[in-house]
């Protein structure tokens, strides 16, 4: 029972930290909306073009906004030695990583369900496509969260090169982007097959992320 109480305490702590730092969270979504507006300015306010490329723009910006949350996952807890305290309270590093993935997904991905319809209206995306974007986001966002977690735990001791974490996220989310953006352009049979492939990628990342991240965290803590 002690493990469950420490897990729930960790959840509660994550919720509190995020809500006390709410402007930090909001700035990511304002970045998303601002980037949509900048896209409109740079391409020109042509409705037909945005109807074609709107889904691609939205997914690219979702990915870029996710790279902004990279340093928020483990860096503070690592610098303050909180991760060791969590571990001393009976949680293995793998479970800490799983809890972090769930909280990060709740805080940094669920608000996109509000922002995506707004940006879809701004970009003149069809209503049918918005439903597809929601479905693909429901599958694609956990994958991106997992990749962000891996990248964030890899760069804990990295004090020289800040952009490389974003590079790792972007290069591993290429297959996700390919299948996710394709969903809006293909017929229903192919879309079913692609959703299954995406689910496969999702479960693959669910399987490997706790181990990979925990290994990286242990490496960082040993050599701090």
């Amino acid at each position: 029972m002690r493990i469950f109480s420490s897990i729930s305490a960790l959840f509660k702590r994550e919720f509190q930290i995020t809500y006390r730092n709410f402007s930090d969270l909001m700035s990511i979504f304002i970045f998303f909306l601002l980037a949509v507006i900048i896209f409109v300015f740079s391409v020109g306010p042509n409705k037909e073009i945005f109807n074609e490329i709107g889904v691609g723009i939205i997914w690219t910006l979702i990915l870029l906004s996710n790279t902004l949350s990279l340093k928020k996952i483990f860096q503070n807890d690592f610098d303050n030695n909180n991760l060791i305290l969590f571990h001393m309270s009976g949680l293995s590093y793998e479970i800490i990583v799983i809890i972090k993935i769930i909280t990060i997904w709740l805080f940094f991905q669920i608000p996109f369900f509000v922002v995506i319809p707004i940006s879809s209206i701004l970009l003149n995306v069809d209503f049918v496509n918005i439903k597809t974007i929601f479905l693909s986001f429901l599958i694609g966002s956990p994958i991106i969260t997992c990749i962000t977690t891996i990248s964030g735990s890899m760069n804990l001791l990295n004090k020289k090169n800040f952009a490389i974490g974003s590079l790792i996220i972007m290069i591993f989310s290429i297959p996700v982007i390919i299948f996710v953006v394709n969903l809006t352009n293909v017929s229903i049979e192919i879309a079913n097959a692609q959703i299954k492939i995406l689910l496969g990628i999702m479960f693959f990342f669910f399987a490997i992320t706790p181990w990979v991240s925990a290994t990286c965290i242990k490496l960082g803590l040993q050599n701090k």
Partner: protein
Amino acid sequence: MKFLINPNQFNKFADIIFKPLIFLSISFLLIGLLFAFLLSPNDYQQGSTVKIMYIHVPAAWLALITFFIMTVYSILGLAFKTPFSFIINSAIAPIGATFTLICLLTGSLWGKPMWGTWWVWDARLTSVAILFILYLIIIFLKNSFSNVVVGEKITAILIIVGSINLPIIKFSVDWWNTLHQPASISKLSSPSIDPSMLKPLLIMTVAFTFIGLLVAIMRIKAEIMNRKIK
């Protein structure tokens, strides 16, 4: 086979094979170029541009093989804690990046007269471009840690996760029917390439392998010396 995991044994082995390797690589390169430019026929459709193949295909193979070797050594290094495998990783990553760049550039030069464009977003081309960026990220990630031990272990983890790109490159021409032609030599049935063109291609592959080994040996020896000084 101790020289594959032991630095001192590797140094002894490298001293033995270094001079024969120079001789072999120069002679194979000369013979291969002779065959490629004088003795092999022009293609009936492509003309003399087919001779780009003798650089392009060996470079592509070696780019993949280098990443495969790095993956194997990363697994060995993380599982059995052999520090020599990280030395090899950091020594041969730039070689693989160079071969990938050669492959991309020659492919681009070949594509302009044949396909009419320098670059298409074909599955094979895109995955090789991703391989090149992955090599660059591996090199940068290793250098961005002030602690060398952490840097090379985390780079090894990245290499293992990134090796998922290798089967995608290999089978991209079979899974997606696109502009780049499928494999014509490594097919299980007889190869669909004429023997007069296959011979220089194989000789050039051997020459490229020897050149790659030569540079790898030099870089690994320099890396070992570097670690000893530290």
